[in-house]
């Protein structure tokens, strides 16, 4: 029962280090079979920039801008690019690897399809764009990053609800080679949000994401265990809140 039935955690907000640590703590709990496969929805308070595991932080993040605007900075355990997390719905899907397609790109496509379905439920036409994005009218509205370690599958990603482009590009730096390679000159015009496409309330997005993610799956509304919460606190302190990790590259 525990093996295939998804635990769905209700939307909550937290700081950047804790958010990343909680994904890891849940993955450990699922690996030790003290928790079932888990779908988590969350937000960021304060807003934060997360950088990919292999990125040079100072190349893609304006640290002075972050300090000025009170924006957190965290390095993810997953690869991919820098993301500004502000008015968005973040998700994570954490389960044994054999519950997801063995092929990494196929797994991105599968969960990308769940995001496309969520958008459809609120009347927005989205398309999955390999490797890891969902686009609306050619602009990015969602990105994801996946990790597979010791038989565990973790994918987290975002759905942008609303956009403050000035703030976004006060904290993100766009490397020159990225600027050169796109046909759209202004990086701010390469992203969009749910609110730009349709003026739907936040609650609709919350419901659409939950419905799309549990579609055709056995699930229950669950809670985190006290062990997961305690472990997340520890991992946040030791790893994600630690400058040695954050400034590793």
């Amino acid at each position, binding site marked *: 029962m525990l093996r295939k039935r998804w635990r769905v955690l209700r939307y909550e907000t937290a700081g950047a280090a804790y958010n990343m640590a909680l994904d890891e703590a849940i993955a450990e709990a699922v690996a030790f079979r003290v928790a079932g496969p888990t779908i988590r929805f969350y937000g960021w308070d304060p807003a934060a920039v997360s950088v*990919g*595991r*292999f*990125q*040079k932080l100072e190349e*893609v993040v304006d640290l002075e801008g972050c300090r000025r605007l009170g924006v957190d900075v965290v390095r993810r*355990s*997953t*690869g*991919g*690019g*820098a993301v500004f997390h502000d008015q968005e719905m973040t998700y994570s899907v954490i389960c044994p690897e054999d519950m997801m397609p063995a092929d*990494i*790109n196929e797994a991105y496509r599968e969960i990308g399809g769940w995001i496309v379905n969520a958008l459809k439920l609120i009347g927005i036409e989205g398309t999955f764009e*390999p*490797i*890891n994005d969902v686009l609306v009218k050619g602009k990015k509205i969602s990105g994801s*990053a*996946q*990790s*597979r*370690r010791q038989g565990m599958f973790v994918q987290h990603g975002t759905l942008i609800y609303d956009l403050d482009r000035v703030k976004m590009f006060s904290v993100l730096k766009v*490397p020159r*080679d*990225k600027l*050169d*390679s796109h046909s759209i000159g202004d990086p701010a015009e390469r992203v969009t949000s749910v609110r730009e496409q349709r003026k739907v309330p936040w609650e609709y997005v919350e419901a659409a994401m939950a419905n799309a993610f549990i579609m055709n799956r056995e699930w229950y509304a669950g809670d985190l265990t006290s062990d997961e919460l305690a472990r997340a606190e520890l991992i946040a302190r030791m790893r994600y809140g630690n400058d040695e990790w954050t400034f590793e*590259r």
Partner: protein
Amino acid sequence: MERRVRVAGGKTLALDFECQGEQVVRIRISGDFFFYPEEGLERLESFLIEENAWKADDPEGIIAKFLLENRFQAVGFGPSDLAYLLRGLRC
């Protein structure tokens, strides 16, 4: 010193290297790609140094073989992209 390439598909792959005299002593690979498992990237960096991969006749081949043997997978760049950055590396 750094070399970088914009890979087909949109990801950035950068290679930083440190020299002692004429010897490359450290290689660091960075960018917005994915690598599975993540910890494997450091092993790839060490392997490139041990093998003097930039001097190899077929750097792409030895990188591909290393990834295959260790069941590592790069998503967002391929052995040929890394080989492109390594070719002719000099201190």
